[in-house]
């Protein structure tokens, strides 16, 4: 992501973040029964998942590139994106859990969407295990990138198809209204879309830093 190296996007990311966090805590939101102020979580919880899916998707693109070209750099990049994606997934789980405590009354409920995401996290933690179980660099790269592509497809089935098959308490599922119903005057969209962009940019920024860090540590170990 060469374009990200330019400072423009970083500044844009910071401005958008400040805007969306400011609006997220202080802006006007529609009054809803039960939800009350927790509707603001839309700006913090849902955006994490968007960011995670973009990060994991980019990682798959690099995995495919590695398998086609055999360049170890793509493997390194793909790995950094997966790791950053996992950080965002963890944040998404935490923000979701806090929201659930105040809306559903429990930190964790038996809900298909929550369970799917938990399984998805297990799949990606296993990815870390695959990587650490193989000492040889080329072999590790090949196997973990194959697994990454496989895992992404299963993960997409898990979060896009399965929760739609069962009733769910989660907004937007099982007859529960999603956010578009809460917000007929589109005020929330003015914050929500910039927030998605902001968190995604932040994710790519972090991933980019990780990639650079990994490259440097690789160089230093080679020089030793």
């Amino acid at each position, binding site marked *: 992501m060469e374009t990200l190296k330019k400072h423009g996007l970083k500044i844009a990311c910071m401005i958008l973040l400040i805007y969306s966090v400011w609006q997220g805590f202080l802006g006007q939101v529609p009054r809803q029964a039960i939800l009350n102020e927790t509707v603001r979580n839309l700006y913090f919880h849902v955006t994490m998942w968007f960011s995670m899916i973009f990060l994991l998707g980019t990682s798959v693109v690099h995995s495919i590139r590695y398998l086609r070209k055999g360049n170890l750099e793509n493997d390194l990049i793909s790995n950094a994106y997966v790791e950053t994606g996992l950080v965002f997934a963890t944040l998404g789980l935490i923000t979701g859990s806090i929201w659930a405590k105040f809306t559903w009354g429990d930190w964790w409920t038996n809900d298909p969407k929550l369970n799917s995401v938990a399984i998805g996290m297990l799949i990606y933690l296993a990815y870390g295990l695959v990587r650490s179980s193989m000492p040889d660099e080329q072999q590790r790269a090949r196997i973990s990138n194959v697994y990454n592509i496989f895992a992404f497809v299963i993960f997409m089935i*898990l979060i896009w198809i399965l929760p739609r098959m069962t009733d769910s308490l989660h907004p937007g599922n099982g007859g529960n209204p999603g956010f578009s119903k809460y917000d007929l005057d589109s005020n929330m969209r003015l914050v929500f879309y910039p927030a998605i962009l902001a968190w995604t940019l932040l994710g790519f920024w972090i991933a980019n830093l990780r990639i650079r860090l990994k490259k440097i540590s690789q160089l230093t170990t080679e020089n030793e």
Partner: protein
Amino acid sequence: MILNEIRLLVRKEIQLEWRQKYAMHGLLLYLASTVFVCYLSFKAKQQAIHPITWNTLFWIILLFIAINAIGKSFTQESAQRNLFYYTIASPEAIIFSKITYNTLVMVAISLIGIVFYSWVMGNPVGNFPLYLLSLVLGAIGFSATLSMVAGIAAQGENTATLMAVLSFPIILPLLLMLLKVSKSAMDGLSIQENWDEIAILTSIDVIVIVLSGILFPYIWRH
């Protein structure tokens, strides 16, 4: 061409199995003892078992047998022999032949399993054809997913641990759908009422098989 290769490789697997008979006997014994352990710990003590527990228990038994049976797909034969296959057959033919053979094994195990399981644990299934259909779809899905995972795990140092850790989360979406369909079968719902679920199960099976065909060549090359 590739179909011919797959046919020959599947025949080779069956012949190898037929001559040793060790793996199949092992699986049947595993099945029998697990079912009997379940019988002793559930049915014999409490005289009754809840239909949902009955269904879930059977799928968990099948899952463990599948992981055991398919997990050794690539470690059973020596590295030299695998190298020999590598030189004479295309990787697609290898993985598709493994999937086909494992599907045959899993269908056989599921059918024998359901008969034995019903014998000792009773059979509360309302719509038996639908239950059998879910067993067949499950056998295909299990063998496709686990063959691919076995290929990955065989590359690592600690195959058994890797196999368990990799396969459980990856098989779960499939298992959840299977539990849903087989639960409907137990309630006696018709196939038409479960058309959506069956379509999704079939498409998961197809996606996994196609994905294995695309990705396996990269694992096999070493």
